[in-house]
């Protein structure tokens, strides 16, 4: 059987050293080895977006990345961006707008939304819908999610102006 490979990476600002099998994907590594269960697994197929995390600043599907590929990388998960306060305003807008029901898609949805808001200061609804089209939500019908992101974008733009 293939032997474990030593990897070293930063996860939510903490140094992590681990020995992992080459076939282990990043989502399972985060969930099962680091117990960061906020990253969810919906399809293991790169389609649903529930496992979205940030690697070296870009959002990726952690079910499509092997843990060994994250060697030397900087990984940020929903737990990290929550604790740092980076998306507190976005989370607040989601709360006020009830932009989540079961909440299973929400960590991935928030990671994707924050990614858009970092790229584009004031995206319109079409752009928001387009950017989130890789994050499935079966509960809300999306409108509340779009509303919450739009509200956050406007508030951030106002703070800057």
């Amino acid at each position, binding site marked *: *059987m293939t032997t474990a490979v030593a990897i070293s990476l930063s996860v939510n600002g903490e140094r992590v050293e681990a020995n992992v*099998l080459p*076939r282990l994907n990043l989502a399972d590594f985060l*969930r099962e080895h680091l117990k*960061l*269960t*906020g*990253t*969810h*697994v*919906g*399809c*293991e*197929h790169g*389609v*649903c977006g*529930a496992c979205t995390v940030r690697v070296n600043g870009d959002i990726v599907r952690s079910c499509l990345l092997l843990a060994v590929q994250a060697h030397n990388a900087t990984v940020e*998960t*929903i*737990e990290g961006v*929550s*604790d740092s306060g980076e998306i507190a305003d976005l*989370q607040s807008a*989601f*709360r*006020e*707008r*009830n932009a*989540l*029901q*079961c*909440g*299973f*898609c*929400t*960590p991935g949805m*928030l990671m994707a939304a924050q990614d858009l808001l970092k790229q584009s200061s004031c995206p319109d*609804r079409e752009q*928001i*819908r*387009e950017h*989130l*089209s*890789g*994050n*499935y*939500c*079966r*509960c*809300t*019908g*999306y*409108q*509340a*999610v*779009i509303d919450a992101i739009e509200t956050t974008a406007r508030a951030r733009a106002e703070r800057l102006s």
Partner: protein
Amino acid sequence: MTSEQEKSETLSALDRPNSYIGKTVPRPNLDRLMQGRGLYVSDIELPRMVHVVFLRSPHAHANIKGIDASMAKRMPGVVAVVSGKELSAVITPWVGVLSHLKGLKSAPQRAIAVDRACWQGEAVAAVVASSRAQAEDAAELVSVDYEELDAVTDMRSALDPATAVIHVSLGDNLAFERNHDSGAVDQAFAESDEVVEAEFVFGRHTGVTLEPRAVVADWNAAEARLTIYQGTQAPHMVQNIAALHLGLKESQVRVVCKDVGGSFGIKVHIYADEMATYALSKLLRRPVKFVADRVESFNTDIHARDHRCKGKIGVKRDGTITAFEIDDLTGIGPYSMYPRTSAIEANQVVNLVGGPYLTRNYRARARVVFQNKNVMCQYRAVGHPIACSVTEGLVDLAAMKIGMDPIEIRRRNLIADDAYPCGSPSGLRFEQLSHHAALAKLVKMMDYDALRAEQTALRAKNIHRGIGIASFIEVTNPSAAFYGVGGAKISSQDGVAVRLDAQGSVICQTSITEQGQGSESLTAQIVGSVLGVSMDRVRVILGDTDNTPYGGGTWASRGAGIGGEAALQAAKVLRKNILDVAAAVLQSTSGELDIVNNGVVNAVDGTPRIDLSELARIVYFRPDTLPPGIQPEFMATRHFVPREYPFAFTNGVQASWLEVDVDTGFVKLLKHWVVEDCGTIINPQLVDEQIRGGVVQGLGAALFEKCVYDERGQLTNANMADYLVPMSGEMPDIDVGHVVSPTLETELGAKGAGEAGTAGAAAAVTNATNDALRPFGTIITEIPLTPQVILTALGRI
């Protein structure tokens, strides 16, 4: 009484500081989910826990001649490989029938197939190992000797004499048939100016909960107790069924339901692989975890719909609808699901067709047949989208035939808002509906005339837009008539216990469950309002059979109407108990006192008398200082079940505005409107979001979602890339309006809202598509409306 939802100018009892009923307030505890700190079953790990992976039949129908697990058992980490026969030692089979669905039959189903697999995906062996990956590795080495059998796949030929019978003991492949005939249908058709017929085809689809089904079963041999952690909508039902088939008492089974990643009716059933997991835990005497992967979800989560329904409508030239007739056929897979059965959807179709309309002439036949496909059962808005699409499709065809506007024909035929209480031809009883008020509001919201003008103008530019209207009725707040009378131990009543703790905060335990609808919020809103306590002091506990009253759970739009009423009544008792003690302490009378903002005040002028925290301190720690004879009871429990009406029907109407690209066959949804009437609205935002989410699930069925089987019973698109669900890019904004007709059966007056969106969305879209395609003289009565379906109808492919 029916009223439109407007802001009241005068202050009412609900405008007190802690009046949350009717107000949009954020759901409690959302931060947990938004920070990734929820606890879904897939997150749970227990000491000594092992993982089960099921080896599933690759064939739709096959004898199992032998299973060789010798190599698999030698693989690293493997704890056991268990066959259906071996598991039979600890769990008994079941039959999914209900006595009130007369004639419904099914065959015994086992947790793991014994001797024969009846659909592609049925479990034939369980592989248990220290990790899921190890179990999957070992599963690849289990060798099963199959003898493939003829598969029954097409429901149209399932009853032919030449077709193989799936369960020989049942005699044929007919699971259930219902016939209904009321009024004078033949005479009505004979007297009609026009009679229109069509066959409506509904694709088989499924719920695609974003978190797959998952269960952790923990048999503690020393306690002789099984704890089941499961994302279920009905914990007490799971408790009852698990105990029954494992030979335990209910008191030996605890069901714990933490966060649930989507349900929609998918997680209200008992699945064979879940039963197998409970049994494996008992057999292996340790916790066993099962999490379906996505392929398994598509192959084993219940499918829904899959109907072919012939419909017929008679109409007079003045628009009067004279009669409806339907002949519905549906295929349910090889077994009727347990314990709710797979005949409910067809039964609902018969119940609901024609429901919004005046005509008393109605004939229906529904037949439910077995097939070698995945099991089919109740999914959100059971039967509603079928009944609504058939009814509203026929109404539009009739209108088209006589040259009448779709709004006008509905105005002339919908039951008048002042005609209630009344009944439907199929025997349903309506307490108070508001079809006309809802339709009038919808027409206004969408600016119908302006849209018609826009449609006409664009047609000249070869842009084909359409408007589709769909009125509907919706089953909510089911009484024992749904399952209990048929012998299923699925409670129709719910209970809430409310108590004041030692610091003046409130803890409620409720038997309804939370899957994101807002059960926790509505319970806290009701209890806070009644008690005069702020919501942040109310904590709601749900989803634990050891720690909540006994009850049904959250399904069939029952949480707010039934669980909400129990919460209201329990809080009223606690309020009285608090005021009695306060009166004794304050040497006043309870009538002179009130509770506002977490404190007891004078009812007359609001003067603060004693904080609830101080009152609680006295009661719990210095009862010696209370006047003699006072026994405070700071905990109260009440239960509720509807008894007067079997179901609290709601109603509504939807409209779709869309554009069809006649070159590519793509449908672009531009806008969607819903007006619905769920009675008293506890939290407007939560109701609107239930509606929107429901609409989008209906839009999925209308445009994208279909489980595509080949003729051998192989599901060919069992993954998220090939099975399409609505994505944010394709979904329109949805405007929601309300008419409010509270049910008088409860003090709260709330009816359900969970099915409404799904009930009418597909009908509105199909009608809009046909409206858009009017210049081409083609009618489509099949969903999903894929480009292929549309281009075929247009004769372009």
